[in-house]
């Protein structure tokens, strides 16, 4: 049997809760950690695990994603055999709308999966920032004779709709449930990354689709638990699930932690992204930067504390940026002040202006806005 795996990624999901941040883009193309888009982490983990056939299912606003990925060259995915396939929203003949849930979405790519020579498939959302060795996970999956290996991590359940896993000492999943009410208790939370045998997935999807099921987790996995072949694989290194503005802000800020950066970037498995050929960052005489993650192409002559600057950001003299995320081409003009804020691409904070959110409720400033 061919041990190789292909991957299916869902570019969309949770857009409604990411509000302004996904107005013009998919969750997959949400900028993260200074120079990346969220999908870079999934793509890099896959490529570094030897998985080079990757289908990406999109639903809406996917032009930013297409622009980011292009032919996949920056991830070494411009292959003659395999490589990236982006599936634009695909209305089935029987339905007027684009797909409703994962089951319908996977049904639209059944042909793609069946034509592929790989015997295993990794199904994943794109709202996860982590650096995962899937090669080892597949080995383990096969050795156990599992139907499904669900990747999960220990986390506080801060937002609803997350799938909580109960497992026994041999990692067999004994219960799955979805909490509606967030709690601060630490639980084993599904990362929505699944490894399974392709033939099994396609047969499940065909049956579920025929019955009109929508939700992959509730309608398939929850029911399959009793058959006793779903295993949980805990990821102990850093893994972020980004599904609303709050988690986006909190998880971004965690990257300022050295240990988190080590687990994301210093694993020997590189994280790739679209190359933009920015110049290195230039610090002026008046620059005062501390505790911050700074991408290439910035020009800094003000104060930056505990913040993340994406590529080509300009911080002018006297400006103060604290606890904030400034995306690509952002400008904070002379003496402008900003704290607890997320400014989307090309936002300009005018001279002397002051903007402040709070730690619990970071303010989001939409793309291209001039304040």
């Amino acid at each position, binding site marked *: 049997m061919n041990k190789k795996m292909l991957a299916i990624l869902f570019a969309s999901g949770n857009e409604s809760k990411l509000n302004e941040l996904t107005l013009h883009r998919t969750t997959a193309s949400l900028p993260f*950690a*200074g*120079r990346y888009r969220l999908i870079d982490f999934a793509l890099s983990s896959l490529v570094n695990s030897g998985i080079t056939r990757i289908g990406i299912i999109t639903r809406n606003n996917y032009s930013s994603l297409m622009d980011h990925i292009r032919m996949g*060259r920056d991830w070494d995915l411009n292959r003659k055999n395999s490589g990236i396939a982006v599936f634009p929203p695909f209305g089935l003949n029987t339905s007027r709308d684009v797909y409703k849930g994962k089951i319908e979405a996977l049904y639209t790519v059944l042909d793609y999966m069946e034509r592929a020579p790989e015997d295993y498939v990794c199904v994943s959302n794109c709202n996860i920032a982590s650096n995962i060795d899937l090669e080892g996970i597949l080995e383990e999956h096969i050795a156990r004779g599992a139907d499904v290996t669900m990747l999960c991590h220990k986390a506080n359940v801060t937002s609803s709709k997350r799938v909580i896993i109960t497992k026994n000492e041999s990692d067999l999943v004994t219960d799955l449930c979805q909490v509606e009410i967030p709690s601060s208790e630490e639980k084993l939370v599904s990362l929505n990354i699944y490894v399974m045998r392709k033939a099994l997935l396609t047969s499940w999807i065909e049956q579920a689709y025929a019955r009109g099921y929508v939700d992959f987790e509730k309608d398939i996995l929850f029911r399959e638990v009793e058959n006793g072949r779903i295993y949980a694989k805990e990821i102990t290194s850093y893994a972020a699930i980004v599904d609303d503005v709050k988690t986006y802000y909190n998880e971004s800020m965690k990257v*300022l932690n*050295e240990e988190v*950066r080590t687990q*994301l*970037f210093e694993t020997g498995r*590189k*994280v*790739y*992204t679209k*190359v933009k*050929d920015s*110049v*290195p*960052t*230039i*610090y*002026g*005489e*008046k*620059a*005062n*930067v*501390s*505790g*911050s*993650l*700074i*991408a*290439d*192409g910035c*020009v800094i002559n003000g104060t*930056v504390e505990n913040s*993340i*600057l994406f590529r080509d950001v300009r911080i002018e003299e006297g400006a103060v940026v604290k606890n904030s995320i400034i995306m690509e081409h952002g400008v904070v003009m002379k003496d402008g002040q900003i704290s607890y804020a997320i400014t989307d691409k090309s936002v300009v904070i005018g001279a002397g202006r002051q903007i402040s959110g709070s730690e619990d409720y970071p303010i989001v400033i939409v793309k291209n806005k001039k304040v």
Partner: protein
Amino acid sequence: MQVKKECVAMLLAGGQGTRLGALTRKVAKPAVPFGGKYRIIDFTLSNTINSDIDTIGVLTQYQPFDLNQYIGNGQPWDLDRLEGGAFVLPPYQKAKSGEWYKGTANAIYQNIDFVDRYSADYVLILSGDHIYKMDYNKMLQYHIAKGADCTIAVQNVPIEEASRFGIMNTDADDRIFEFEEKPKQPKSTKASMGIYIFTWAKLKKYLIEDEANKNSHNDFGKNIIPNMLNDGEKMYTYDFKGYWKDVGTISSLWEANMDILDVSSGINLSDADWKIYARNTAEPPHFVSAGAKISNSVVSEGCVVEGTIINSIISRGAKIKKGAIVQDSIVMPNAIVGEGATVNHSIVGWNANIEGGAKVGEYQEKAIAGEWQIAVVGPNVNVKAGDVVKAGAMLEEDN
């Protein structure tokens, strides 16, 4: 039959660059890092593609592996083309002979077939050890408009410095009547930049003749250009006014890097219309920790800065530890400056490790251009804790 290319560029990248000492012991000069994330050759490669010239032969000979790997298929410079693109051209064995490149002219002579393959009308000769941004296409249009056989790019240098350069003496129409290599009494201030455009049919004739002459040095400056002048060929200078620097010595390499920090120097790397491309190494953004202090400096991807950086170029992946002070220096890729170490007026080579408390180089208030006493810690060299490296010293890896 290949698609015709009006102009093919040939980049002479075979020189050893002995004056860069430890930095070019294992790599060719064009592969030496520059400006935080670049290599010297990125400037000529980027100029070429930005000038709409998409076919370039890179002639390598000395320590070619690193350079070959770096150029690869030319993709980072958009030089991976169906027709044309970037080609690394090492010396090769032919049916009747096979030999190293004897000189700059011989290197082109040995690759006559390469240029002929594209039916080129013109050949642009470049060297891979200069930092500048130049639109070669403008020079080509000038060459064509003049109906020239050879056009040589020149810079106006101060007359007191002219005796360090190859000087072109021209008439009012910029036609060259005399070429003097490093003249004691310069008659003009037009210094050759080592950038030539030749009408290919003409150059080919001179290359073949030169090869037949057993006493020739097979060199453009010593043989081809004087021979063409003697024969009265139409040779013109092309004035170039922008930033241009030969980075053949430690002092000039250091100065050119420092020019990035000086807005008035004219080397603006942030020009969106004239990007300088480089092969990317996929590193995360750099991190500046609490307690770090950075002023008037360039910091690249993958760096972690905990110490103090003043007037310096910190290249990708370098680590500046707590309490370390780096001033007026270049720290090359993946080098480490340990806790409490000081680095002053120095070049720290790639992967070098300065252990805690070591002292590298000495502060210098001022020096004449080209005569800075720059300490060099060679690539992969380990400077032990507490060691002192004197100003102008050069440390090399043991072999």
